[in-house]
């Protein structure tokens, strides 16, 4: 029932602007269910986003919400968290937002291992601007700026996150939204920089151009190509879901707090 999570929504702002069948709405509900599961104080939650279809999410959610500039969500979030570490900060980004223009803030948030929960909504495309290829568009797929098929290779964004220093990485899909809820709970509980890549469907700007007839077809693709990590290797179009990596490292705001403490001692 929506009523069970309605308290976390700005219902007056609904219905949302996303296209029919767009996965972002489904993911929004899954995220909200994670926050509900975590029983976080609504006043203490901050949701930060960049620019893109995915990044319109915070506007519908009844927390402290910040819709920033394209690609910069993590840098704003870093300011929030560094200044007031007790806040629970979630960061919502599109694949383009996070990995194209926002790539640098992404690797640096990872390097600092700052305690943010980053959710990348990967619909393989720039949705908001109408379907240009993103750094996460699969090889050979069509986009308005890849009219002959994408020549480039996509990022394996969780590999990049890990190499850069993130301490938690997981993947789910709009279809596997219960898993998503669980992974976000775990990501939040990781005391460091956590990334949850969420495969979503963009029927309008990606699906139509890539032979998906309906939104349901795209969800079906997610269902069929997702492979639970540890159970089977992901080959071809398949991809792993579940917790991809987890490790421990000093967290930025904690280190800073220790420094302040140490200086007091001196």
């Amino acid at each position, binding site marked *: 029932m929506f009523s069970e999570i309605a308290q976390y929504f700005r219902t007056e702002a609904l219905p949302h602007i996303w296209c029919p069948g767009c996965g972002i709405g489904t993911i929004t509900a899954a995220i909200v269910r994670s926050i509900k599961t975590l029983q976080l104080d609504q006043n203490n939650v901050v949701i930060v986003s960049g620019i893109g279809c995915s990044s319109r999410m915070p506007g519908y959610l009844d927390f402290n919400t910040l819709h920033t500039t394209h690609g910069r969500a993590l840098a704003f979030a870093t300011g929030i968290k560094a200044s007031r570490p007790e806040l629970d900060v979630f960061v919502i980004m599109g694949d383009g937002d996070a990995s194209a223009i926002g790539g640098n803030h992404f690797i640096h948030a990872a390097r600092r291992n700052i305690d943010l929960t980053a959710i990348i909504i990967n619909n393989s495309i720039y949705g908001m601007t109408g379907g240009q290829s993103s750094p996460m568009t699969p090889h050979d797929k069509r986009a308005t700026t890849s009219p002959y098929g994408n020549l480039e290779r996509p990022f394996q964004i969780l590999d990049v996150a890990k190499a850069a220093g993130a301490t938690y990485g997981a993947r789910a899909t709009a279809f596997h*939204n219960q898993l998503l809820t669980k992974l976000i709970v775990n990501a939040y509980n990781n005391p460091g920089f956590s990334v949850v890549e969420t495969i979503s469907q963009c029927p309008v700007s990606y699906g139509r151009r890539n032979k998906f007839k309906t939104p349901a077809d795209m*969800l079906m693709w997610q269902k069929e190509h997702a492979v639970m990590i540890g159970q089977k290797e992901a080959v071809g179009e398949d991809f792993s879901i579940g917790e991809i990596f987890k490790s421990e490292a000093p967290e930025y705001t904690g280190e800073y707090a220790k420094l302040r403490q140490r200086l007091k001692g001196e």
Partner: protein
Amino acid sequence: MVSHSSKIIVNQDWCKKCGICVAFCPKKVLGSDELGRVVIVEPEQCIACKICERLCPDFAINIEVNKDE
């Protein structure tokens, strides 16, 4: 024995007629009318799995479950 009775409520103001719920309902409870609107075809078949509710991108379908023990 536990029996469920469930009520399916579609918020037509929010529904965008994407067809996801119809496609994924394991029990073919849901269907579309000629204008694409979601209609409840076989209410009694519903097993309250909430797949439709959770997959709906528009928070437009609600399954109200009455647990009778």
